[in-house]
């Protein structure tokens, strides 16, 4: 080993705790990047392989009942590749031993061969025997949630009749990677399941022989114009058969969630690591500047011995490179482990029959390369000033630092300040850029923490508003067909039912000029108490006027404002088309919806019965018996429990978000500690001589500690409000990035989030201060008097 390399290693060893602190910041950035890249790459590759192998469709459409011959017309739409028609029905499921109501989808599989599109991946068991009516495949998560095995039986409640189903296989489908039921935010496999049956038997049970009610197709190419044209034509073909409006793959629920998750991984996986790497570069530069300043005379001596500027420059660049390389190494290993753990969590909620583990090596190399380049630039900046000095000049000690009276003092505060306080202020104001960057560094740690916790706050707020203010029913019942008012009385008469409110939804297309939106209009009875519409301040809005109320997002999409007229094309019954005035907009958190007062909706649809659901408040003591009775009612298509929805969201938050949050918080602490600790060590190094002098002339340890820690304290205290502000700004940005038609997270930051984040930053300071204070105790008072710096 060359002498200079030995010097490098020993120099690094001497400042090992600082080197480690910086390396850990680097490794946090790299780990987050590798993790996000790994999860993103794996999910993306896995998804694409899955979609290709199991022929995930490009366009999806539902209808009431379409004769089979129409399939020819659909296949003839220009640009359409394959077409798959199906029968899909919503049913109640009855699993022996489970009293809770369970909703399900029964999906048809062709009698012979595999489906052309949206094929199922068999996990266990076998495919269906077309001659046996009772056979069914069941979705994997549903089977797991209920402990169902091959040969087990369950029942689909069809028109009040319990149709027994025998499980012969467990399957997955690309349509249900994220297998949520209607209106759900996260999958709840205990209360919602997918099953597949042979088409002939399913059609017979639902009087769908000779027809279909669901169609999927692929397009020959992916151009958006072709997709739009195909959708328009498909809608035109299906309209007479109760078409519910076709959607492209991008809007398909499962795929939308998956895509949303991927986009988040992509942006968060780049943005957050960048913050870490920027902070690490700054720290490297500061520490190297200090190292070079201390080694000024050594550098001069080496130059006098004949080492070139380039060689010496390289020496200090190596210093930075070693630190980054160490960080990168730790980061890559940690990132790969984290990616695996995160994928494990993802695989719980996003189900694939295969997993292609893919880490983008080039992505990691680019990240490491960028960090190395940044470190090199930082190192060169630090070294240049000294390396460029002639040796003779460099061998003399650096002239005393120039100081000025700080701005704060000049503004009049001077006479109130003790000399030590002035030292602190002037030390800070002499390197304002460094002070500001330190503050920004610490603040970014605070901001990351705020974002982490605020996500939880938002979710809590969403749940609170959605499940305590908007939806206050214990359960909701949906019917196969609109029912008469008497059905409400029937429900009210059931034992344990305390309150019933009818609801209804009507599928409709809203139009304003060329802008249109496929949606459902929700009918609300005047004075409804169980399902309400609320304004921005979460106060209930009375729907007592005829007219339409839209989610703000929906109104924006249609570019309409209260007072404007919206064209409503009803997609049920006689499919009337009417102009309706928009009376108000509301900021929905879950989903986008159109609301109308019940009677005006009835007039619009020109039908007496628009009620196809009901909200119930029930006596919890009677719930089991009530569930049984509801399942037996022929008109009931499904029963949804509020508590189950709440529970599944909470579990999801605990599983998924909290892991991501803990990882972020842990790394944020590393940043906070890395910046504060290094700041403390640098100022200790810069002021140790002064502090020792003060000790000699009689200052106590506590007094000199307060000078050093005063500097840290000021930086930290300045960083905390900035961090909170920055965090609030980031969370606002993150939330608007999250905003979608499916949910909108309210920007809510609980005061405790600010308190906890500030406390964590302060805690990092206390730990750093405590570590450095011990070094302060070991100051060599005698040595410092004998040497110039």
């Amino acid at each position, binding site marked *: 080993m060359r002498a200079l390399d030995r010097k490098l290693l020993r120099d690094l060893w001497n400042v090992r705790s600082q080197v480690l602190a910086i390396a850990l910041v680097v490794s946090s950035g790299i780990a987050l990047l590798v993790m996000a890249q790994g999860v993103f790459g794996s999910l993306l590759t896995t998804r694409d392989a899955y979609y290709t192998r199991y022929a995930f469709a490009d366009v999806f459409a539902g209808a009431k009942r379409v004769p089979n011959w129409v399939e020819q017309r659909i296949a003839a739409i220009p640009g359409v590749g394959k077409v798959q028609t199906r029968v899909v029905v919503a049913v109640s499921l009855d699993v022996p031993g489970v009293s809770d109501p369970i909703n399900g989808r029964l999906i048809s599989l062709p009698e012979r061969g595999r489906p052309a599109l949206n094929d199922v991946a068999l996990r266990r068991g076998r495919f269906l025997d077309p001659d046996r009516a009772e056979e069914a495949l069941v979705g994997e998560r549903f089977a797991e949630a209920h402990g169902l095995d091959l040969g087990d039986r369950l029942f689909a409640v069809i028109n009040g009749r319990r149709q027994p189903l025998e499980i012969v296989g467990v399957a997955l489908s690309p349509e249900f990677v994220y297998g949520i039921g209607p209106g759900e935010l996260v999958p709840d496999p205990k209360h919602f399941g997918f099953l597949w049956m042979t088409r002939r038997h399913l059609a017979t049970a639902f009087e769908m022989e000779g027809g279909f009610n669901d169609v999927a197709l692929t397009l020959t190419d992916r151009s958006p114009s072709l997709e739009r044209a195909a959708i328009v034509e498909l809608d035109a073909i299906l309209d007479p058969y109760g078409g519910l409006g076709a959607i492209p793959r991008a809007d398909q629920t499962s795929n939308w969630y998956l895509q949303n998750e991927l986009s988040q991984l992509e942006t968060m996986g780049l943005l957050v690591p960048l913050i870490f790497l920027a902070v690490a570069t700054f720290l490297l530069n500061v520490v190297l500047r200090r190292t070079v300043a201390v080694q000024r005379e050594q550098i001069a001596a080496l130059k006098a011995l004949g080492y070139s500027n380039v060689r010496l420059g390289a020496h200090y660049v190596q210093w930075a490179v070693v630190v980054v390389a160490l960080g990168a190494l730790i980061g890559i290993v940690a990132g790969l482990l984290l990616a695996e753990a995160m994928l494990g969590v993802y695989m719980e909620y996003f189900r694939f029959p295969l997993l292609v583990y893919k880490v983008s090596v080039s992505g990691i190399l680019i990240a490491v390369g960028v960090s190395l380049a940044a470190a090199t630039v930082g190192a060169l900046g630090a070294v240049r000033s000294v390396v460029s000095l002639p040796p003779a000049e460099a061998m003399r000690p650096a002239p005393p630092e120039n100081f000025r009276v700080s701005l704060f003092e000049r503004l009049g505060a001077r006479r109130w300040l003790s000399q030590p306080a002035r030292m602190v202020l002037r*030390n800070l104001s002499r390197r304002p850029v460094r002070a500001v960057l330190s503050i920004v560094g610490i603040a970014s740690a605070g901001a990351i923490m705020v974002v982490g916790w605020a996500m939880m706050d938002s979710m809590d707020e969403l749940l609170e508003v959605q499940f305590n203010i908007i939806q206050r029913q214990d359960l909701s019942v949906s019917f196969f067909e609109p029912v008469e008012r008497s059905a409400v009385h029937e429900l009210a008469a059931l034992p344990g039912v305390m309150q019933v409110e009818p609801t209804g939804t009507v599928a409709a297309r809203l139009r304003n000029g060329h802008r249109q939106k496929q949606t459902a209009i929700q009918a609300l009875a005047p004075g409804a108490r169980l399902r309400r519409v609320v304004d921005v301040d979460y106060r209930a809005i009375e729907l007592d006027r005829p007219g339409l109320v839209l989610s703000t997002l929906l109104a924006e999409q249609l570019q309409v404002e209260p007072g404007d007229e919206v064209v409503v094309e009803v997609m049920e019954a006689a499919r009337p088309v009417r102009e309706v005035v928009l009376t108000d907009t509301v900021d929905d958190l879950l989903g986008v919806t159109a609301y109308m007062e019940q009677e005006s909706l009835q007039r619009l649809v020109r039908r007496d019965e628009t009620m196809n659901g009901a909200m119930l408040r029930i006596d919890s003591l009677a719930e089991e018996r009530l569930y049984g009775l509801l399942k037996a009612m022929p008109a009931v298509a499904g029963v949804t429990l509020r508590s189950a929805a709440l529970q599944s969201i909470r579990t999801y938050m605990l599983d998924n978000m909290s892991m991501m949050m803990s990882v972020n918080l842990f790394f944020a602490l590393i940043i906070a500690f890395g910046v504060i600790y290094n700041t403390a060590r640098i100022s200790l190094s810069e002021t140790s001589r002064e502090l020792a*002098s003060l000790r*000699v*002339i009689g200052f106590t340890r506590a007094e000199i500690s307060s000078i050093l820690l005063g500097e840290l304290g000021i930086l930290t205290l300045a960083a905390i409000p900035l961090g909170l502000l920055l965090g609030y700004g980031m969370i606002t940005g993150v939330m608007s990035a999250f905003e979608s038609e499916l949910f909108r997270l309210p920007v809510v930051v609980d005061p405790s989030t600010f308190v906890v984040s500030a406390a964590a930053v302060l805690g990092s300071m206390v730990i750093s201060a405590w570590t450095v204070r011990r070094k302060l105790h070991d100051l060599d008072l005698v040595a*410092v008097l004998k040497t110039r710096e």
Partner: protein
Amino acid sequence: MPAQALASHPAPVFAMRGVTKVYVMGEVEVHALRGVDLELQEGEFAVLLGPSGSGKSTLLNILGGLDRPTAGQVTYREGDLSEAGERALTRYRRRHVGFVFQFYNLIPSLTARENVALVTEIAGDPIAPEDALALVGLKYRLDHFPSQMSGGEQQRVAIARAIAKRPDVLLCDEPTGALDISTGIAVLGALEKVNSELGTTTAVITHNAAISAMADRVISLADGLITSDVRNSTKQPAVTIEW
């Protein structure tokens, strides 16, 4: 006045009895002091002379409460410095000792006045910083930072800082070591003035024999032992010293 003080108060300010100091440097033991007996009297201006390695700095550090002897006893008036703990030594330095160092050890971020105020803020009955600086001839440099002053000026600020708390003893370690002759003389003049006007007991260590001409007493050290202890019959003014 120094002579008077000596006559009327035979009790010494400092008394050292059999003081040894051994530094363990890795595997080598360095005997810096090998059994020193020494007394310093009230108001005395003493020069401790010796080549480097003679133990004079170690002696000064022990007198100043920066270091403790390995063996032997050191008393300051009635207090035992050799037994004092860290806190007691800090208190001792804070109340009784003024230090002047070879490299000044000023705080670069504080002006001349503020460097002195650093001490007067924690002292019981201090001289005003402006007066202390006037005493060393720097009343026109009050608001200059160290980087704006010459070495001699910086050293005189250091002296002003040392005496502003009215210390009982002023300990100077090679105060002219980093200075050229003319600025060195100005610094010695300041020390002389402090000693005569304030009556502060002063110990100056140096390897520069010329300085001994201005002392009441010259103590020579070599190899950890006192080799001679001479009282000057006449003190020469600092301005007449040459080297």
